[in-house]
């Protein structure tokens, strides 16, 4: 646990000292989300109909922007070798890195969502469910993104491949997440999709670090 905290604290500190990089996904997200209302007619319910989908897809795409930094920096400066060789189980170190990454990239994105939701006329009554669904999807998304980043450590320009690798796997999150939001917009019970998102999160947190650690070891060999 002490090592988990040490890795988490180090990654957060490094991230905040390069805060300008943290802003990239946020700006990307804001731009994508504002382009849709500009491109579509503001009348009628068109915007509201596509709003949920756009917000979810934009969140996923923006989170991909930052993923190259997850392991690339540590691989390039040799820290990753030392993490593998250290007496700490690599799964714990990897989990700490994924948590740190989620805190500095996904969390700010999710905080931005309620504000951008207004541009799509999404009723404010549905916002708590939207944010809750995103928070429940965040662990699974982070683990998938980290797995993609770990599998492409050995490649110099892994960024675009990771997108191809990870985005198809996010479809269950997208289906349950948008379903929960739509149900709450229509005032229907949302427990089922939210519970499914939670189950996926539990699965990802428990098994994900094992897979990521194995991928990191192979990637550095």
């Amino acid at each position, binding site marked *: 646990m002490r090592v988990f905290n*040490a890795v988490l604290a180090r990654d957060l*500190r*490094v991230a905040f000292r390069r805060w300008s990089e943290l802003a990239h996904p946020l700006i990307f997200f804001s731009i994508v989300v504002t382009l849709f209302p500009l491109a579509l007619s503001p009348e009628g319910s068109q915007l509201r109909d596509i709003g949920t989908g756009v917000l979810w897809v934009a969140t996923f795409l923006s989170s991909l922007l930052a993923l190259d930094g997850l392991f690339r920096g540590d691989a390039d*400066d040799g*820290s990753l*070798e030392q993490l593998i060789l250290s007496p*700490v189980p690599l799964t714990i170190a990897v989990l700490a890195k994924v948590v740190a990454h989620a805190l500095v990239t996904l969390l700010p994105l999710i905080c931005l969502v309620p504000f951008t939701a207004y541009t799509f006329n999404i009723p404010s009554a549905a916002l708590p469910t939207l944010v809750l669904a995103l928070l429940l999807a965040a662990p699974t998304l982070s683990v998938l993104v980290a797995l993609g980043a770990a599998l492409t450590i050995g490649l110099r320009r892994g960024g675009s491949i990771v997108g191809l690798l990870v985005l198809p796997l996010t479809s269950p999150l997208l289906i349950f997440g948008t379903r929960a939001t739509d149900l709450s917009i229509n005032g229907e019970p949302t427990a089922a999709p939210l519970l499914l998102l939670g189950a996926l999160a539990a699965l990802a947190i428990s098994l994900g670090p094992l897979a990521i650690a194995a991928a990191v070891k192979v990637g550095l060999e």
Partner: protein
Amino acid sequence: MLCGRELAVWRGERCLFEQLHFELGSQQLALLVGANGSGKTTLLRILAGLALPTSGTVTWNGVAVSELAAEARREVAYRGHLEALKRDLTVAENLEFHAALWGREPKLEGLLEELKLVQVAHMRARYLSAGQRRRVALAMLHLSGAKLWLLDEPTTNLDGEGRALLVAWTRRHVDSGGLAVIATHQPEEFATRGTLMIEL
């Protein structure tokens, strides 16, 4: 004891080395020598358990190095060409993290003084010179408190005084029961009686 048996590494059609045997007991130093590209770094990474040989086994106290338990892994330190410094953290922060990783107390004061790093202790690592980065890597090696040192050309970029310090540390480490495997192009700096030379 560090043991290598029938080690061979092939890169495609090319053989880097084969039929390599060695045994290294405590209070022993081994020097890896060979031309550029002869496989020194590869062998050290194999000894550390970071890479696998094409055939053969490496054991540390009877256990294969890629399957060491946590307690045994604490005894092995590997320092490669990369210093494992986070450029955006200060020298002291880097060292404290490294000590935490190895579960050691970060006693930095005397160490930084010995390595002439006191002036830069609170500077970000990105502002260090190549030689200073090497010195921080040596500090990390010291902090890990390992019994077996695996060093890949540790004298690169070090000035004369730094090299002398490293040689003195190595002697002291070996004399106090440690083991070291060092890849180097200047074996005469480290060699003493009883030094095992591994030529690739």
